């Protein structure tokens, strides 16, 4: 009896010591995960949270630019890559400081609703219609609207003609809808759900291109992501001319009046960084060595061509 009780006491103590040790380890780990973000340097690093459209991420343009910014401003950049729709949603919820998107119409709404301010245009390129070399719908060199019409028509008759849509409310998805509209179709009635020829991927640009490649289908892509992925793809550019294919990238900060904890100072630094002369050169030359042509064009001197005000490409935000 005595022996058992003694034994129990020891094991009990051991258990308690073990439990305490476990909790301490857990706490240390938690501190390790959260605390070190503020501790490692004596001067606290500012964090900039960016929600970006997938094309700027998948092309590795942001991977190229963020180290330059981090060095210059002693900041840490956290990039969440999502379609423009999701990026705007994060912005609307105040979960990021800055958004990099490419959907003019929805940006306007976002700004009008008071969520975004200080929009600047920093880059542009073009969308392309890509598809299999065999081009079963015969759309090569057509105008974008005519090509879309042809794909829809052939797709309904021929099983081998498939169009893969981003289907994720991204900027590219918006552009695709705009082209369907320009071609005279009602998107939800005539395109979506009109047959197996039209498939929605619900994912980023890179993933959609990979999927389109597997299915030997057609898709609309920004030229940047397409070039960055081209090495792994058997898809070729079929349509690349038409005013409607213009693709304009903007950056804006979340309105600090709506979300006071937003890091507005560093957000402005990022916007001004992107439209600065040096970085505009970086953007315009990014990828030339690897792909033989730029993935993006600098917006700085082409504001007339892309139809935005000069102030929107040149004036730093204050």
């Amino acid at each position: 009896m005595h022996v058992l009780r003694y034994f129990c006491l020891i094991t009990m103590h051991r258990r308690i010591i073990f439990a305490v040790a476990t909790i301490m380890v857990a706490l240390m780990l938690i501190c390790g995960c959260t605390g070190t973000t503020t501790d490692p340097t004596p001067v606290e690093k500012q964090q900039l949270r960016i929600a970006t459209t997938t094309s700027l991420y998948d092309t590795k343009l942001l991977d190229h630019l963020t180290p330059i910014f981090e060095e210059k401003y002693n900041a840490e950049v956290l990039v969440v890559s999502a379609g423009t729709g999701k990026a705007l949603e994060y912005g609307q919820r105040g979960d990021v400081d800055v958004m990099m998107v490419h959907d003019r119409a929805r940006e306007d709404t976002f700004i009008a609703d008071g969520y975004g301010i200080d929009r600047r245009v920093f880059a542009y390129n073009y969308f392309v219609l890509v598809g299999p070399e065999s081009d079963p719908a015969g759309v090569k060199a057509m105008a974008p609207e005519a090509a879309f019409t042809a794909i829809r028509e052939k797709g309904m008759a021929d099983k081998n003609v498939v169009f893969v849509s981003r289907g994720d409310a991204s900027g590219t998805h918006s552009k695709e809808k705009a082209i369907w509209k320009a071609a005279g179709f009602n998107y939800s009635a005539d395109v979506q759900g009109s047959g197996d020829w039209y498939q929605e991927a619900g994912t980023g640009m890179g993933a959609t291109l990979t999927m389109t490649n597997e299915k030997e289908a057609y898709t609309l892509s920004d030229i940047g992501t397409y070039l960055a992925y081209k090495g792994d793809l058997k898809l070729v550019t079929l349509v690349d001319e038409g005013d409607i294919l213009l693709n304009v990238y903007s950056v804006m900060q979340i309105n600090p009046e709506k979300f006071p904890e937003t890091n507005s100072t560093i957000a402005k630094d990022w916007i001004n960084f992107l439209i600065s002369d040096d970085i505009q050169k970086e953007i315009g030359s990014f990828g030339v060595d690897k792909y033989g042509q730029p993935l993006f064009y600098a917006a700085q001197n082409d504001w007339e061509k892309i139809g935005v005000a000069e102030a929107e490409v040149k004036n730093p935000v204050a």
Partner: protein
Amino acid sequence: MYEIVEGVLEALRLIVTLDPDVMAIAVRSIVISLTATIIASIFAIPLGAAINFGTFPGRKSLINLIQTLYSLPTVIVGLLIFLLISRVGPFGFMRLLFTPTAMIIAQTILILPIMTGLTISALSAVDPVIRDTLRSLGATRLQFLVNVLKEARFAILATVAVGFGRAISEVGAAILVGGNIAASSFASSTRVLTTAISLETSMGNISQSIALGIVLLVIALGVNLAITTVQHR
């Protein structure tokens, strides 16, 4: 086929040379999921014991509910945590979204039911003779609990391993609340093995995916091996 072979070879190279990116992601995965498992254990084991030895109305239904939550979809947990910690959510002021802490919270909640349920099973499987002996020897409540837990320690260890396995292999919640961020500092990044595999595959970097997949499997195997070694000792 060529792609798979080439991918595996490249994967082995990345692992053998201790590729810094792959290693950082692996270590981050372990730290996050291990922390979640430890926190979940602190809650789940006492809770499981209380439910197993307690007598209260609705006990059976509670156990049923817990067992139903075994299959709690990871994306649902992710969505729930996302809504709670997003800036406009009730805990938004803490600025937890897109941090490793958010991932730890999500994984803890995800594995809490299965760990509680398996603890109940582990304790109820303890030989009734031992329980009766303890009682007849006049053990206090605490002594009783400690000794039954000791008796069931291998099964509880297995419970912890199952919890860790589920935490480290889930991707839905990790990507929703973590955001799959690759930052310049280790502690701010939220890219773990599963989210990295998802991203790399979608970007067509198959060898990187295979390497990360192998690392994930090795971790899972290692944990199970460690558990079985302890159990057979």
